[in-house]
């Protein structure tokens, strides 16, 4: 194994990791806001990829351009899911945790079914996107353009999110609600509205990720499942609910995955991620950046 190969795989791991972070951050945001894990998160990603695909197929809009549209569509979708399902799940008096898990899980199954029904189980891809298949060579290290752009988008998205949470009214309402949901009701913030917007924002972020992914990944009804587990691990590694943690968690997951692929057969590359998750939570039961 040459140093070149190691640098190559670490570089692609880093790029992929930034994308993992972007996929996961919506999950972290929603969890931090209201202690709910969205078990349909992977399906949100899947829907985003399809939206991006059809925008390309029907209107020839490149995924890179359609990303804001996809994010907007997912924003609406996320808010609707909150209003139609999650809002009611949160009212459960008995078995609250169970109700949250299985109502979103049921939603995931419905979404997969709908995708199969309307889009067929066929694998699809966007063949001639602007970025697809191109690579940039940098000092002998080859970097695929879509991932590179994806990583850039991810960094921008995180920077934007940081700005948003700390500098805007809604961001402050979001922070306040997550710190003390009871108190915000007293100062006249409508909790439901904040939650709905939080779900919208979380979904929009995964929508952004989905649009990027669509330009270089196969699109099929079950695509979410493979990324969902990685997203949970990413969020848990970072410490549930920590937005910065999701960013760092994503990078760690990407690097670990790339490193594992160097030493183990490719079919075992996820084992490294899972093992790191277990290792981290055994040492720090609340994740790397979670409050103890």
């Amino acid at each position, binding site marked *: 194994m040459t140093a070149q190969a190691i640098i190559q795989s670490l570089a692609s791991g880093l790029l992929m990791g930034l994308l993992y972070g972007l996929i996961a951050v919506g999950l972290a945001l929603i969890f931090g806001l209201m202690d709910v894990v969205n078990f349909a998160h992977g399906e949100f990603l899947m829907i985003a990829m399809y939206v991006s695909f059809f925008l390309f197929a029907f209107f020839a809009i490149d995924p890179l351009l359609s990303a804001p549209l996809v994010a907007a569509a997912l924003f609406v979708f996320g808010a609707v899911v909150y209003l139609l399902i999650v809002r009611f799940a949160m009212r*459960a*008096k008995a078995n609250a945790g169970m*109700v949250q898990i*299985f109502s979103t899980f049921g939603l995931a199954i*419905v979404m*997969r079914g709908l995708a199969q*029904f309307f889009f067929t189980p066929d694998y699809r891809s966007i063949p001639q996107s602007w970025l697809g298949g191109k690579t940039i060579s940098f000092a002998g290290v080859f970097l695929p353009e879509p991932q590179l752009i994806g990583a850039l988008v991810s960094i921008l998205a995180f920077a934007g999110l940081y700005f948003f949470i700390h500098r805007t009214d809604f961001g402050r309402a979001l922070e306040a609600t997550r710190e003390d949901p009871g108190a915000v009701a007293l100062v006249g913030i409508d909790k439901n509205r904040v939650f709905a917007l939080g779900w919208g924002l979380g979904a929009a972020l995964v929508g952004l990720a989905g649009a990027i992914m669509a330009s270089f990944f196969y699109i099929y009804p079950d695509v979410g499942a493979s990324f969902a*587990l990685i997203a*949970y691990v990413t969020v848990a590694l970072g410490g549930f609910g920590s937005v910065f943690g999701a960013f760092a968690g994503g990078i760690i997951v990407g690097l670990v995955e790339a490193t594992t692929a160097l030493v183990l057969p490719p079919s075992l590359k996820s084992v490294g991620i899972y093992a790191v998750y277990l290792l981290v939570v055994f040492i720090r039961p609340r994740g790397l950046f979670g409050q103890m």
Partner: protein
Amino acid sequence: MDKNFAARRRRDLVIAAVLAALAALAPLFVKDVYVQNILILTLMYAALSQSWNILSGYCGQISLGHALYFGIGAYTTELLFTKFGVLPWFGMLGGGVIAALIAMGLGYPFFRLRGHYFVIATIVIAEIGLLLFQNWEWAGAAMGITIPVRGDSWLKFQFMRSKLPYFYFALVLCCLAWFVTWWLEDSKWGFWWRAVKDNPEAAESLGVVVFNSKMGAAAVSAFLVAIGGAFYAQFLAYIDPESVMGFQFSLLMALPAVLGGIGTLWGPVLGAAILIPMTELTRSYIGGSGRGVDLIVYGTLIVLISLALPQGLVSLFSRAKSKGATR
């Protein structure tokens, strides 16, 4: 009060006996192999869900990784049978014991985790197991193991001509899992588990060793699930990692209990009796043609029931009863 309680326990036992007897007679009327198949699966999932319910329902440690124990039961049995000629019955017990030991071994680090960290850890460990088996050449890797045909016999627990023996075994397994639950429900363990689920700190202050309670629940639960896995392997006569250790098993063990009523005696049976035939029927009648309609129906049902009846379908019965009882 005590009399009521004892009477209720006895009533449960009588109902179970009647249901089991009726089920045992079912093959007299059901000759169709397809329907028999559904009955077998229903009984098996009822048993599995009942076992899952011990750890996740009574003790409150939600596992979405029980497929691991299911697969271990299946693989132990078939590896012992095909490689060493050990009879499936011993493999079944061996698989149960190994699964229980693994569950306890995992319990050491896992039971320190709370909430979602625990749930995700269970999913992750089952995925690791799946990946390892997929890459384990000696155990057939992703190709799996085909169980050699040695002729129909109870000794080898293998039946090609009729599915009825499998049916009866599944029935016995279901009764066993139910009875174990019934028995444990009114025991020190049963009370400890429920206390741990509701409030571990308070339980600890009342002399409950929380960690040991979880370990006990994990061991019993994994043992029974592994027996189910061994059965399933014999029933299929072929196993590969995905078809005995895939995530869908973790889910299919949890769902009947959740729909029927988690942490209740009758929930898993009731849930399985509704869910499994529905799954199978939608899969074969609409699943083939409609592409995913089965998933839509299935998922919608899960969402609706978990929102409308957080305590499961059994709560319909107790609600009706308590209404009748009010003076």
